[in-house]
């Protein structure tokens, strides 16, 4: 199972990278970035996964006895953080994109920054 997880997350990353590299529309680029980010998050979780693992939540003494079978909690904690960062990036970049549309009258990343009046 781990291999499937890793493979699928890697493909997500590559799809996203392809998008970032080829798209010119800023919104599409941001979507592609989000796809990469999802891929990376999945990858991190997959790194912590063990075959037939159980959730790292203690419910009774039984789960304490099964500590060895628990999946790694640290990647999950990291992913929690990275999700928030992704959210922040997206929000900030989208608002910048709105401002960009306002000033450049375009959402293409090829729009020239230098010339023209400041709006």
């Amino acid at each position, binding site marked *: 199972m781990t291999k499937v997880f890793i493979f699928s997350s890697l493909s997500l990353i590559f799809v996203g*990278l392809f998008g*970032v*590299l080829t798209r*010119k529309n800023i919104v599409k680029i941001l979507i592609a970035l989000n796809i990469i980010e999802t891929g990376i998050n999945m990858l991190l979780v997959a790194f912590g996964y063990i075959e037939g693992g159980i959730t790292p939540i203690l419910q009774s003494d039984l789960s304490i006895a099964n500590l060895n079978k628990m999946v790694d909690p640290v990647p999950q904690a990291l992913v929690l953080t990275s999700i928030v960062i992704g959210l922040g990036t997206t929000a900030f970049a989208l608002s910048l994109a709105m401002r960009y549309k306002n000033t450049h009258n375009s959402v293409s*990343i*090829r729009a*020239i*920054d*230098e010339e023209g009046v400041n709006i």
Partner: protein
Amino acid sequence: MIELLFIPLIATLFLAIFIKNKKVTWPLFLAVNGYVLYKLYSIYGMWSLSNKFDIGYEILGAKLTLGVSNNPIGWYFAFFSALITFIISIFSLGFNQKSKENVSVIWMLIIFSNLGIFFAQDWVIFFMMWEVMGWTSFFAITNARDKALDGAKYYLALSLIGASLMLIAISLLGAYTGTFAITPSIFGLIQVINSSNKIGIVILLLFLTTFLIKSAAFPFYMWPQKVYAEGPEDYITFMSSVMIKYGIYPMAIFIVPVVGSIDLPKILNTGNILQYVIGYIGAISAVLGTLLAIFQTDMKKLFAYSSVSNMGYILLGFASMTIVGFEGSLFHVVNHMILKAAIFLTLAAVVFRTGESEMHKLGGLVYRMPLTFMTFLLGIIAAAGIPPLNGFGSKWMIIQALMSRKMVVFAIAMIFASTGAFMYLFRALASIFLGQLPDRYKDVKEVPLTMALPMLIMMVLMLLVGVVPGVVMKPLTSALKAVGYNVEVASLTVLEGSLKNATIDLKIVFYMFVAGVIISAIMYLFGNKSETVPQNDNYTGGEYPEEWGVDADRFNYSYAFYQPFKEMFDPLLEAISIDDFFASVGRNFEYMSNEVQALFKRGEGAVLLFSIGVLLLILGGLII
């Protein structure tokens, strides 16, 4: 010892503070130069003086100490540089009354670096002073005027390239010989080369290139004409007479001993390859400088090329690798300092009074500026190497040395260059001072006293050194003896050649010359008198070329003076011009610049480039 360096540095600070007040700066400048001259005079013979500074910086695993020490050859250069500088600074006193800019601050800094170069004990401090000279010269040449910017940029680029090469050379030298000190590194480098290590030759060539750049020798002969044409005249006098010798000094103390004692394949049993390399560079510089000087219309450019050719003579003297040639070269250094200073002072005086440096627009100034004319006359006689004045002795020694080593090609080149020198020198004399005075210069007056005095001193110096070469040769030979060369201390008037029975007593030559002067004076007094007509009658046949929309100056006899000669040599000059190369480098840089700029302007391919960068790193990772 150390105060010799510190006084100019402190003076720089004071000059900077009083920069707006010319009445303070130039006298102060003169005073400091006088002090330096006196101090140098007083430390003659004290070769053990030295100072070391520990700056706490470590390199190659050892603490770097910077040291300056009094050394004979350095003293020889420093003293005569200081002498000429002192005389020029008297001239500056009067010359700078009108000018808006004030070059004295930067100039003082250059004098500081000058002393540092001559008394450097190790290559690091030598390099530091060398670099200081590079950028300060930039500011001195531009002197805050835009028209001089191009020449100054050219000079700056060249000297920075030279300094970079030297930095590489010094680093290699330090790594391979384990020392940065100059004297031990000579022996170290000889050992490195003799153990058939190619890196030694590379080091030597890197050093040589740097020094050639500074001394305006063959591939780098373009900067003097660009710089001298636009820089402030009094500073240019200093530059052409003193600063251009900075490249010669390290050659004398480093290149010559090394090239003289390494085992390399010999050519025709006369000298090793490197000797011939230096020789050919010298010969080409001498010939090329002369040829180019002949074709110039700007007098400052003319004498710029004359400097190139004189540097060629000095290199030829080095190339002979005989003691007479070496002495001759070092003697020529001082001779050239004196005569170039004399000539450039007169040019500065002419520019001061007329504001013009194109020769065909001048003429007849002999009637208005007789003292300037006299100085110029003596200067060009000296430059042509005619006996009673100072250029003769050194050239004679160099040719003697070349002949004794059977380097006939070089001797021929040198004789050709010396002969060619007559052509341009006479042309300058005829165009500037002889002929007819243009109407616009009717009211030109002789220069004021502060400027006349240095010219007088120069005349005296030229005659003195010409007739009594001992005043220079004595310190020189004792300096060489102190360093360890096997030489006799020279007598006052007699020069020793290296061929059999080749000695020359300049006293006798002087007497003969005096007799000649007396005869020609008699001829002048009793001969026919000339008649004066207005200038335009003479060369436009009474017409007014302005009416046809043509500049009358073009019809002056001194415009395109040597046209046939020029047509003869033009193809050759075009073929060897290195300026196109530099220009094309510049163009390519600009082209590249445009391409990359487009990249940075958009910023759109940022991620693409990012991933290409990642790919490059991956390539590094794949090749384990």
